[in-house]
């Protein structure tokens, strides 16, 4: 009973001192505003850094999931040795046939070509679609991309150059809404095509455009109907059994393509093999750069905020000497004075943190919308920011608060 009531009294004393600290903050508005602004900038950068790292991490997960751990993606290209415009075209149908026939472990090889910025029309409505992909049977499987309705291409479709198409989510939604597009005839750059399937929503931005904003037709149809050369393909997607042997598979694939392209030892590859591992490496590197760059920025901003706080509090302590002396004369103990100044510092940094988070999220959303960074907000950010700002308040407020507490009452009262 005794212990409980003394504990309560102590709590009440703390509440009273904190309330006094808040009064003082209101009284010294301009100074408070400066500290809040300084801390807010630091916390804003901290918010952005955590949000963008989380964003990059989620993006990595998504890319991994889409890319699949069991697949390689081969992009044609010899940037050094070929004329502009032909650089990308180094992979041929002969490569595809040879991989299908000879590469151990590969069970699905799908070539791709693309045509950009086409017009898709259905009845009296039309939409611009950024990319028209030509591929073969197995396209949906190769990309782990399920069809919500309809079917993938058949071998027959590809052999005949059939005028059939798969709609990804965006064009399907634009032209058909929720109703089924199956069996309908659409016009792709004025060529009539029958819709045979609809790809599921993927929801991932890739290089600015949504991955869902695309059409897929047989690669033969693409080259025949839109007058493209019939020898080359732009990229290959190869899926393997035994994903644990991916390093081995990738090396085999590379060796096979080098042999097929008659590259001598010492010559550079005229293609690039991408695997999930490869992409992950790149993302990790990107993330590391992000942490270093934003981390330094955030650290500097927070440090500056801390120094502004400490400076203004030293000023505050010397300006408020008589208040400190008076409170001591009235019976405030040293720790009550210290607690008041610390409470003022921490309250300011916490308020600064809230503004900083709002600012950081605003800037983050802006960067996100510009496509510069993917941003992911979470409670983690909230708690990290509060923790960081509380720490700034205590670390940078402690010295001035101690100085205030240590003032002898007689000295403090004289100092008017």
């Amino acid at each position, binding site marked *: 009973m005794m212990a409980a009531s003394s504990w309560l009294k102590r709590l009440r004393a703390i509440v009273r001192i904190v309330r006094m600290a808040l009064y003082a903050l209101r009284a010294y508005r301009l100074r408070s505003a400066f500290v809040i602004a300084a801390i807010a900038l630091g916390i804003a950068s901290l918010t952005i850094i955590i949000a963008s790292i989380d964003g990059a991490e989620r993006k990595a997960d998504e890319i991994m999931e889409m890319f699949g751990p069991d697949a390689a993606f081969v992009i044609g290209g010899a940037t050094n040795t070929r004329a502009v415009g032909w650089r990308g075209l180094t992979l041929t149908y002969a490569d595809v046939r040879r991989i299908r026939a000879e590469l151990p472990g590969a069970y699905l090889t799908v070539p791709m070509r693309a045509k950009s910025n086409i017009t898709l029309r259905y009845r009296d409505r039309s939409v611009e679609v950024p990319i028209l992909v030509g591929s073969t049977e197995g396209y949906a499987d190769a990309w782990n991309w399920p069809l919500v309705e309809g079917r993938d291409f058949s071998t027959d479709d590809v052999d005949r150059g059939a005028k059939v198409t798969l709609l990804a989510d965006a064009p399907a939604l634009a032209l058909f809404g929720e109703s089924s597009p199956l069996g309908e005839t659409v016009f792709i750059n004025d060529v009539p095509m029958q819709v045979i399937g609809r790809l599921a929503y993927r929801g991932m931005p890739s290089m600015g455009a949504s991955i869902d904003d695309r059409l897929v037709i047989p690669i033969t149809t693409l080259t025949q109907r839109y007058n493209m050369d019939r020898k080359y393909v732009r990229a290959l997607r190869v899926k393997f059994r035994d994903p644990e042997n991916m390093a081995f598979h990738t090396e085999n694939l590379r060796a096979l393509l080098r042999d097929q392209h008659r590259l001598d030892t010492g010559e550079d590859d005229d293609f690039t093999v991408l695997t999930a591992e490869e992409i992950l490496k790149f993302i990790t590197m990107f993330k590391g750069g992000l942490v270093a760059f934003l981390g330094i920025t955030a650290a500097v901003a927070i440090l500056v905020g801390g120094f502004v706080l400490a400076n203004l509090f030293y000023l505050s302590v010397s300006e408020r000497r008589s208040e400190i002396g008076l409170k001591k004369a009235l019976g405030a*103990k040293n720790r009550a004075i210290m607690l008041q100044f610390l409470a003022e510092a921490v309250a300011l940094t916490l308020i600064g943190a809230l503004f900083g988070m709002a600012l950081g999220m605003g800037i983050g959303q802006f960067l996100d919308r510009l496509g510069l960074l993917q941003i992911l907000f979470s409670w983690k950010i909230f708690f990290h920011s509060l923790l960081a700002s509380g720490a700034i308040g205590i670390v940078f407020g402690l010295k001035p608060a101690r100085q205030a507490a240590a003032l002898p009452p007689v000295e403090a009262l004289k100092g008017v």
Partner: protein
Amino acid sequence: MSGAALIRLRGVDKRYQQGELAVEVLKGIDLDIAAGEFVALLGPSGSGKSTLMHILGLLDRPSSGSYYLAGEDVASHDDDRLSELRNRAIGFIFQTFYLVPYLSALENVVLPGLYGPESGRHLRQRAEELLVQVGLSERLDFRPSQLSGGQQQRVAIARALLCSPQVLLADEPTGQLDSNTSAEIMELLAGIHRRGHTVILVTHDHATAAFAQRRIVLNDGCIVLA
């Protein structure tokens, strides 16, 4: 005056070190003040009366000698115990009022109570009563800057009385006030004394000192008249 005095100083010295030079501000002060007295502490500036007031008010410690406050030897108490003792035993009234500028009159009066054990509601009620007593019932929510000098000193007097201290220490309480207002403030202090409080008035002004029953005159660190 039954037995022990409320305040008893014996051989109190106060020395300051100024570089090589030791300055002796108080020299062997012996002083007894009984409960209920109204004492004026007089002396020219530099006589040591401010230093003596600080020691009496537990704001400073003697360099040597003993100080018994209500029988308790307080000369060697640490900061925390001195704070506690100041809170409940001493009420201060200063020349420049020392009101907290961002608190209302009522909040200023409540202030010393916030460092003590009493409940907030009780403190506010008592603060209101005291402000009524000093004639400021209409000004409870005014800021110091909205009050005249005399009114500010009344707030300070109400604040000094909040914790029912054993000793009221008034350091030049009329130093910043015109003569009419000074007389009002001194009447107020005399009234407080008549209700049984011990009042120690520090002043260099003999007219002000005339309100007290007893004069103690300090010169060059020694009591020349007690």
